[in-house]
């Protein structure tokens, strides 16, 4: 399911109008007296393009999907006002641990990213980075109407309207704000999707990486990072 996108947008991809001084090519004195060139973006970041990682076949994948569904590790990153709905999940009243949902502090160990509410352009950049750092398979739950169509911030100069133009979303939870129960229901839905093998948005993201990147770069003018954050 490849998405169409404007090929011309690609030409803008490598423009970085707001290149930070730290990312500019610099010349430093090596200990042996020679002067060496350092290009931070090339030298300090992996510039590899990610590859699509196909699921396994048959019952093995089904079993693994079951395990993945029962072990959802959520990245502790609250992007908007909806993040206030996440902490109650670990209270006795909701107790998400029952469902195999646990919070993790680092994207490297998380599978689920809850985009909790509106995303300003500035936060979107961080969200993209965190998402890309998560190991595949990974899932996004979009919480609240802001992520669907901008919600009450639909005409804001600094808040995105449609999350799915920037990151692939598995489950939307509508409402402003949805209550924790709705979030739990969302997790239930995500589990279903995973078990059915339909939650392959991570691969979709990689298939349409250029489209996503063009969209992302259209609004994130201060890019200052490699195209894909490993």
């Amino acid at each position, binding site marked *: 399911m490849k998405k169409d996108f404007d090929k011309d947008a690609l030409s803008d991809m490598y423009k970085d*109008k*707001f290149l930070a001084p730290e990312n500019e090519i610099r010349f430093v004195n090596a200990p042996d007296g020679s002067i060496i060139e350092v290009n931070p973006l090339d030298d300090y970041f992996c510039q590899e393009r990610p590859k699509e990682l196909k699921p396994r076949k048959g019952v093995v994948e089904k079993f693994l999907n079951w395990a993945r569904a029962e072990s959802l590790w959520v990245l502790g990153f609250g992007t908007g006002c909806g993040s206030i709905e996440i902490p109650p999940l670990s209270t006795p009243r909701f107790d998400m641990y029952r469902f195999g949902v646990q919070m993790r502090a680092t994207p490297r160990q998380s599978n689920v990213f809850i985009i909790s509410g509106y995303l300003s*352009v*500035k936060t979107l*950049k961080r969200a993209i980075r965190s998402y890309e750092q998560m190991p595949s398979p990974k899932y996004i739950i979009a919480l609240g109407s802001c992520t*669907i*169509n*901008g919600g009450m911030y*639909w*005409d*804001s*100069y*600094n*808040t*995105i*309207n*449609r999350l799915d*133009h920037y990151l692939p979303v598995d489950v939307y939870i509508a409402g402003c704000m949805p209550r924790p129960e709705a979030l739990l229901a969302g997790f239930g839905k995500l589990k279903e999707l995973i078990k059915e093998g339909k939650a392959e948005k991570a691969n979709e993201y990689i298939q349409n990486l250029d489209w996503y990147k063009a*969209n992302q770069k*259209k*609004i*994130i*003018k*201060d*890019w200052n990072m490699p195209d894909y954050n490993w």
Partner: protein
Amino acid sequence: MKQLVEIIQNHFPINDIDLRKKSLAFISIHQNQAIPLLEWLKTTHGYKAFVLLTAVDWIEENRFQLTYLISNPDNFTELGVRVFIDREKAEMVSAHHLWKSIWVYQRELKEMFGINFPNSPRVNESFILEGWDTIPPYRRDFDTKQYSEETYFPRPGRSTNDPAKHMKSKLYPKD
């Protein structure tokens, strides 16, 4: 408050005196006199605490209004000093030598209104917006709706209602 304003009047040419209540008053002063006035208030009348600096875009009058809100912690009074500056040449003297913390406000105003404060620390760095490259968003000639529609892929089919009208039509469909 009244006495204070009178005293100020004796020393500085102020106008538009607006006494709100016992502990709050607003005065206006010319751009050139503002910083000396603030300094004078700070050193001689105990207005040591800086509360905020904000701006209003009077696009019709083609000017920005800056309001320095300062406070006297000894008698709990606050004084707003208003300054009007030209919109075309939006520039104001920085006051960071009086209050260190004011540089944050000045940086924000620079970003949001494009009002320049020469020599203020880090005034040219981006503050909330990263990589903003059009006119400052708080200027009233910036059309945020249009910008959002052009930029953020509005979802087709979304309809927006004025809450008051919408509720009225729902609750009292007959009217």
